[in-house]
């Protein structure tokens, strides 16, 4: 049962991060979480469809995560949601066209390995 929720969380959180990153990149920089910054982000959410679709996916991921928490411990559930790390970085390179340097690959790989160890 818990692996069904893990799969749901992984797919929806990947779509959520990649699509909202794509949507937010067109906007100006927000550097702090003051009222002005929060309003700017809220404005972007309603005006950028990709950000909204990303957030919907994050909502699905959040509900699946809540369900997961009722059948598994937090120290299992939280890292399980990170299983999509490598997938997200691959999409960052191919879909978002980011320059993924060797340090970032190595970092993402270490995070992925660390997460797998936590899962065992």
């Amino acid at each position, binding site marked *: 049962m818990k692996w069904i929720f893990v799969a749901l969380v992984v797919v929806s959180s990947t779509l959520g*991060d*990649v699509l*909202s*990153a794509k949507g*937010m*990149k067109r*906007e*100006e*920089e*927000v*550097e*702090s*979480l003051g009222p002005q*910054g*929060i309003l*700017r*982000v*809220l404005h*972007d*959410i309603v005006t950028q469809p990709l*950000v909204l679709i990303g*957030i919907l996916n*994050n909502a699905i991921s959040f509900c699946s*995560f*809540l*369900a997961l*928490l*009722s059948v598994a*411990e*937090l*120290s299992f*559930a*939280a*890292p399980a949601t*990170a299983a999509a*790390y490598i997938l*997200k*970085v691959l999409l*960052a*390179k191919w879909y*978002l*066209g*980011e*320059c*993924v*340097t060797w*340090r*970032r690959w*190595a*970092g*993402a*790989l*270490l*995070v992925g*390995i*660390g*997460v797998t*160890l*936590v*899962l065992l």
Partner: protein
Amino acid sequence: MKVLPGKAGSNLKHALLIAAVVMSNSVGNLFLAFGMRNMPEFHFGSVLRYVLLVVSNPWIIVGTALLILFMIGQLSLFTWADLSYVLPVTASGYIVTAILSRVFLHENVSNMRWTGVVIIAFGVMLVAETPPHVEIPAGDQT
């Protein structure tokens, strides 16, 4: 490949924003776990009753508020940082979560899990040293 120079005063602001994102995520998760501990196990047969139970739990309400703040914070990060930077750097939340789970939920975090946490920490440090945004000039797609 060109690395954009940081604006004066930006680095501290950026570090504070990353810290706020990481902490709101980890503390939010902790509150959710507190809340879900008192819930019955999930069954597809009684979804509506289950949803009502969940949304009336104060721990879940505060945890959700923190995760909404986390979401807004992460969207702000995307305006000046690459996804391949944001993801590993905010993964430091797993380190904080492991410590919070041990201290506040008295969960048994095994040696294997702690080893995983240490490896995640090395990954975070590697990526944190790269510039948040690396520009690829047109015609230099590698």
